[in-house]
């Protein structure tokens, strides 16, 4: 038993009272281990869900914003701006259509455009998209401020005119592709073993991981997609879109030109605003999860209250005995408050653990599906605030039983008619 753990020696006055209350609370929790565990688990789950829902939303938004690949805008076929962004930058959804090569040349020469890289889609290898583009994308473009793409040594970037491939880090890891490997692309964006092209591509380079959707793609020369065996020869000069970086406020002028006055192409600009509109579509889900978490927080509070009330009932005699031994009302009431504080503190700790696990799971899932890397969950202000909220919840839940206990007389508990 707890001789070694007894820490009351030589503590005096109010410190002794606090120590005794704490000791009593710890014993009560241990004696009611099952209800303690249930209460802690429920509080942890509600706190973890609440924090997870809140933080995941923030992290996903941030991760998507950082994973836009350093582009301001995308020019594509007439259609939805969101579809264009998801297709061009996150390699999701289908391409809304094609653009003529001339359209690429026109926008490339626009004085408000600082970077323009055409890209073409239409094939995959074992489910991973092949994206045709120009080698300059990997030479000149900074996907993150001050950071160019890095090719793992001793690889290199593909040649514009060869059937060569530069493989994203995640694809290489998943498929085990290495330098010198050759593969047949498959037609379409979804893998279908019956639609294998005869062309053979040679892996000449593997990209260093970026934590962006780039890692989930096999990059080949633009001409490769355009002239792939089996593709329509009439489409050999068309592209799926153009990735753009703009100078100053030229986005406004281009927006008017393409979206308001023109009818042949769509300019998806500005990318962050379009992504925000994407997340706004899930606002209902976010609200539902928040409502669920709040409901669970309420349940957590009620469970703490029920645990304390049940404990109080069982410990009624114990409290009376303690009072007879000289324990003040503050000591016995304090033990109830401590019990609640400990429950809540463990609940807060548990909620952080659940939040951490939840975030890791969501992060892995998102990274696996679309290559967007999320930052590791941290104990930031919101996490600490949630922990504080749980402690407050515990104290509020303990308030009523503690108040009742404080006001109760020994006469009720000790059956004084003896």
């Amino acid at each position, binding site marked *: 038993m707890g001789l070694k753990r007894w820490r009351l020696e030589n503590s*005096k006055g109010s410190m002794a009272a606090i120590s005794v209350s704490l000791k009593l609370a710890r014993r009560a929790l241990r004696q009611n281990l099952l209800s303690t565990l249930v209460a802690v688990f429920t509080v942890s789950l509600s706190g973890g869900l609440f924090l997870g829902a809140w933080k995941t939303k923030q992290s996903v938004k941030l991760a998507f914003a950082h994973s836009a690949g350093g582009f301001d805008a995308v020019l594509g076929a007439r259609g939805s701006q969101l579809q264009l962004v998801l297709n061009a930058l996150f390699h999701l959804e289908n391409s809304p259509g094609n653009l003529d090569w001339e359209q690429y040349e026109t926008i490339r020469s626009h004085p408000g455009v600082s970077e323009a890289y055409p890209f073409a889609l239409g094939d995959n290898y074992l489910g991973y998209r092949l994206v045709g583009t120009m080698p300059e994308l990997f030479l000149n473009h900074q996907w993150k401020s001050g950071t160019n793409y890095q090719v793992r040594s001793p690889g290199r970037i593909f040649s514009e005119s060869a059937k060569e491939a530069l493989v994203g880090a995640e694809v290489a890891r998943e498929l085990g592709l290495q330098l010198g490997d050759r593969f047949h692309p498959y037609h379409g964006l979804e893998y279908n073993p019956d639609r294998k092209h005869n062309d053979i591509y040679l892996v000449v380079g593997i990209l260093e991981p970026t934590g962006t959707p780039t890692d989930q793609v096999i990059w080949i020369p633009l001409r490769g997609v355009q002239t792939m065996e089996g593709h329509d020869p009439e489409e050999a000069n068309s592209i799926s879109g153009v990735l753009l970086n703009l100078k100053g406020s030229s986005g406004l002028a281009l927006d008017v030109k393409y979206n308001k006055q023109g009818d042949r192409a769509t300019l998806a600009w500005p990318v962050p605003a379009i992504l925000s509109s994407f997340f706004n579509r899930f606002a209902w889900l976010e609200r539902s999860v928040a409502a669920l978490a709040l409901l669970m927080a309420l349940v957590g509070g009620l469970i703490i209250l029920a645990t304390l009330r049940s404990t109080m009932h069982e410990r009624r005699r114990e409290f009376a005995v303690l009072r*007879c031994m000289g324990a003040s009302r503050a000591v016995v009431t304090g033990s109830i408050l401590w019990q609640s504080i400990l429950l809540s503190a463990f609940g807060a700790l548990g909620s952080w653990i659940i939040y951490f696990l939840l975030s890791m799971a969501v992060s892995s899932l998102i990274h696996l599906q679309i290559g967007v890397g999320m930052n590791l969950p941290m104990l930031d202000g919101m996490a600490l605030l949630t922990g504080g909220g749980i402690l407050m919840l515990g104290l509020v839940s303990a308030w009523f039983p503690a108040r009742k206990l404080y006001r109760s007389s020994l006469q009720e508990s000790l059956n004084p008619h003896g």
Partner: protein
Amino acid sequence: MQFLSVENLHLSFRSPNGKSQPVVQVPTFSMEHNQQLAIKGPSGSGKTTFLHMLAGVLTPDSGQVRIDGQSLGAMNESDRDQLRSGMIGYIFQSFNLLNGFSCIENLLLAMSLNGASNLDRARSLLDKVGLIDREDHLPGQLSIGQQQRVAIARALINRPKLVLADEPTGNLDPTNTDRSLELLRSLCKEWGSALILVSHDPRVIGKFEHQVDWEELNQINGSKEVEVGKQ
């Protein structure tokens, strides 16, 4: 000066039909330092209530209790708590050891409530009551007689000036009754603690030199005065 004195102590409870029901009416009662006194009386007659008032657990409707020159009525609750933790040891019929705490921890807890605990002293007392080899046992792991010995040790650990024992042998067999009683009385004597023991058992009462009949002391229907004296 008397160590303990009671004057015109009166307490009523409200009965279920709303009427005031007098429970304790003690005109005068006193005892000396180190005195050991047994109060005999039937169950349910108000003896425990009387002990609770002596301990400051219950506040009388009127009257006064003075312990070692201090009037309980003049004290606030905090002072009475302090008085109970340091000056009074309380023993219950059902022992009321704290179940989640080992024997030694029950003693240490009582010491802590008095301000500071001392492991050596707690062990020494457990040794005196013959339970040093059970110091880490929980109450549920002890026999009834052993539990009562721990309860006695707990009541005496702060060397109180007054020990109140409420039917302390009510749940014990004759052998354990004799043993516990002997232990309680000898420890009180050794440490100079006054002892008031209430019981309905004539065999227990008979072992005390000083005895009081509760029905004479508690004059709900009369006005007799009873003095503590040799039987």
